[in-house]
């Protein structure tokens, strides 16, 4: 079985939907979120709860994290703050748990470990250099995993979007919602992001757990790096939406008014991940059109 911390969050929800089927040949998932009584900050309780459900061949997918980047900025450099505690100390507890149970750990990280100054796509061997607190704590978490876990895979993900827009709107569903409401939207033309289909992320997490790929970092991200403005234009084209509702704005200008550091260019090289998928027969969404076409947006 696979224990999933933070299973009720954005990624975990989709992971559970896809893999919590009783008739499935895939290993069973156990949701280990706060709501399920698993608190990664309460070490003793975590260990005893986990030991109740985990079997000798178990694995852990570690999603639980402090993911509010603006909120993290307000705790900048505060090692007593929730962001640091969850991302670093919480991860340390999960690593220790995995080690104690001999479980392979699939740890989730982020493109925000990079500074966004490189114009070419970042590869797994590029040196991280986070520029804000969330990214800094996530990089420390990576180091905790690499230095201490007995068996680990790190998945860096970026801008996940969902098949069905969920409770928390992702960037794609936000764009779709506004276009379908005829609302004006403002999107950066001078920022590069790499949107990723959540189903691809969920599949990869399962495969990485099953295969116990040891000591590897993967950029598990979509095939296109582009600006939010370009993404908006392509969604409008695909949905037959009104492109004139989209106004291109500038991140460079925005940063002048809002002091929170923001990564400008996060193009991601996914060659390693795609090669892995090819060799293991994981079918990935091939391009944005295909993935976006698969997403159902239900206007509210």
């Amino acid at each position, binding site marked *: 079985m696979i224990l999933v911390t933070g299973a009720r969050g954005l990624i975990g929800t989709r992971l559970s939907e896809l893999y919590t089927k009783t008739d499935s040949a895939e290993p069973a998932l156990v949701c280990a979120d706060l709501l399920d009584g698993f608190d990664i900050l309460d070490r003793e309780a975590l260990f005893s709860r986990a030991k109740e459900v985990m079997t000798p061949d178990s694995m852990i997918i570690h999603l639980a994290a402090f993911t509010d980047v603006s909120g993290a900025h307000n705790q900048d450099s505060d090692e007593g703050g929730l962001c640091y505690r969850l991302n670093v100390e919480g991860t340390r507890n999960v690593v220790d748990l995995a080690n104690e149970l001999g479980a392979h750990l699939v740890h989730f990280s982020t493109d925000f470990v990079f500074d966004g100054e490189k*114009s*070419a*796509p970042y590869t797994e061997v590029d040196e991280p250099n986070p520029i804000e607190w969330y990214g800094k704590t996530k990089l420390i978490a990576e180091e905790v995993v690499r230095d201490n876990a007995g068996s680990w895979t790190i998945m860096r993900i970026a801008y996940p979007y969902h098949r069905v827009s969920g409770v928390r709107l992702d960037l794609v569903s936000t764009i779709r919602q506004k276009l379908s409401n005829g609302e004006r939207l403002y999107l950066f*033309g*001078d920022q*590069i992001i790499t949107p990723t289909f959540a189903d691809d992320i969920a599949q990869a997490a399962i495969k990485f757990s099953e295969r116990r790929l040891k000591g590897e970092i993967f950029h598990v991200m*979509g*095939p*296109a*790096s*582009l600006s939010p403005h*370009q993404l908006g*234009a*392509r969604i409008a*084209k695909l949905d037959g939406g009104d*492109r004139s509702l989209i106004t291109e704005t500038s991140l460079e200008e925005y940063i002048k008014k809002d002091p929170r550091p923001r990564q400008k*260019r996060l*193009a991601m*090289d*996914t060659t390693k991940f*795609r090669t892995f998928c090819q060799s293991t027969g994981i079918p*990935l969404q*091939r*391009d*944005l059109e*295909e993935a976006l076409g698969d997403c159902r947006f239900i206007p509210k």
Partner: protein
Amino acid sequence: MIVIETKLSGVLVIEPKVFGDDRGFFLETFQKQRYADCDIDLEFVQDNHSHSKKGILRGMHFQKTKPQGKLVRCVRGEVFDVVVDINSTSDTFGQWEGFHLTAENKKQVWVPPGYAHGFQVLSAYADFEYKCTDYYDPADEGCLLWNDPAVGIEWPIPNHPVLSEKDQDGLSFGELVVSDKL
């Protein structure tokens, strides 16, 4: 005429021999036998001429199943001409090269079939002419996104070039590769 090889296999820069005097100049812009001697031996079936203003970027175009070889030149003004290798079996797959073509330098670029091509206008106006080895087929047309970071073309005017809607919605290199749309 001087023929210069580039890092992209088969892509050539051609400097035709120009005869100038006080009346003006004269050059041969194509001569079947001489160009065939430089391995440009496909038959040309269509000639095109485009006129564009400064900042306009047209690209990066290719045809998926009926790739066109193109012999391009700039007859007025100046353009930055770019070629991207989209042949997946090539050693330079995904790499690009750029050339300054001007009415004055009269250089030509030979873009063999299997490359994506585009250019950006650097002068107030530019007239661009090219010969093609296959017919234009809108149904077969593909477009690689002009500023895809995975290719990393260094355009002389990188911010806000003027693009057609079709060119704005070009696919990224990664998408073209994984979706077999090359």
